[in-house]
């Protein structure tokens, strides 16, 4: 009985999370993959490259970080995968967007428990950038 219930609830929750994720992944992935083949992406990428360099990322990967900040991790993943990242780059984006993602909605949720939204959002963005810089420095030190 309980085993069946656990299985049933687990599958139900798993599928509902997966559904949420697919809804974001598919459009973002397709958009990024197609965009990355256009001239506009190259221009944006080149413009942002100096900012992304200390993070060990390419200019185009800024899109993944921003998608993560505003939407969620699935959007970041969807924007990142078509750009053929290295495992270090995936890990850095994973860390940064893990700390700071879905900022508007989660800020609102935390606000309800009595913590100022502007405070948590600012804190998360700053910490995510510092963490990204630190992890990249660490990777360069250890893996060259």
């Amino acid at each position, binding site marked *: 009985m*309980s085993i069946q*219930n*656990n*299985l049933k*609830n*687990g*599958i139900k*929750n*798993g*599928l509902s*999370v*997966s559904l949420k*994720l*697919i809804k974001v*992944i*598919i459009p973002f*992935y*397709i958009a990024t*993959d*197609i965009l990355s*083949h256009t001239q506009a992406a190259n221009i944006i990428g080149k413009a942002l490259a100096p900012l992304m360099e200390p993070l060990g990322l390419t200019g185009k990967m800024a899109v993944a970080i921003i998608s993560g900040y505003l939407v969620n*991790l*699935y959007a970041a*993943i*969807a924007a*990142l*995968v*078509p750009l053929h*990242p290295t*495992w*270090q780059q*995936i*890990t850095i*984006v*994973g*860390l940064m967007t*893990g*700390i700071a993602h879905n900022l508007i909605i*989660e800020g609102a*949720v*935390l606000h*309800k*428990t*009595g*913590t100022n939204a502007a405070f*948590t959002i600012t*804190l*998360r963005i700053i*910490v995510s950038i510092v*963490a990204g810089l*630190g*992890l990249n420095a660490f990777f360069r030190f250890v893996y060259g």
Partner: protein
Amino acid sequence: MVDIVSHAVIGSLKLSVKLILIIVPLMIAYEFLENSRVFNRILDALYILLKPLGFSKQASISMLTGIFLGITYGSGILLAQSDKGKLTKIDILLSAVYLSMCHAVIEDTLVFVVIGGNGFYIIITRLIIATALTYMFYLYFKDKLNKA
């Protein structure tokens, strides 16, 4: 152009399938864990770790949910508890700081591992940052917010 579009569509579908195959078993495992006796022991163990950071025992329940399942679930329980008056102001502040840095760590990290990232570095860095930052807030605010 057709090539580029079909490449994008196939790539996105492949990624989606990969993620479903990881996430469904994970949620099943969590369901078994949550309904097992071990769950309470994990809660006790977590409290031992959280107490030095200034958390009350009540807070560790929402912390556990938040760390594993995410802000939305964690805050739901946090909200319910703070409405019941079970949490102190410092509990709420520290929970918000900790959970801002470190929540849904298993699920979030796994999705990046699925695409080739290193999960160990992601989790360990987030735990260190969350713990250090929460402790700093605790030291700074422990005398400023009520301890009742």
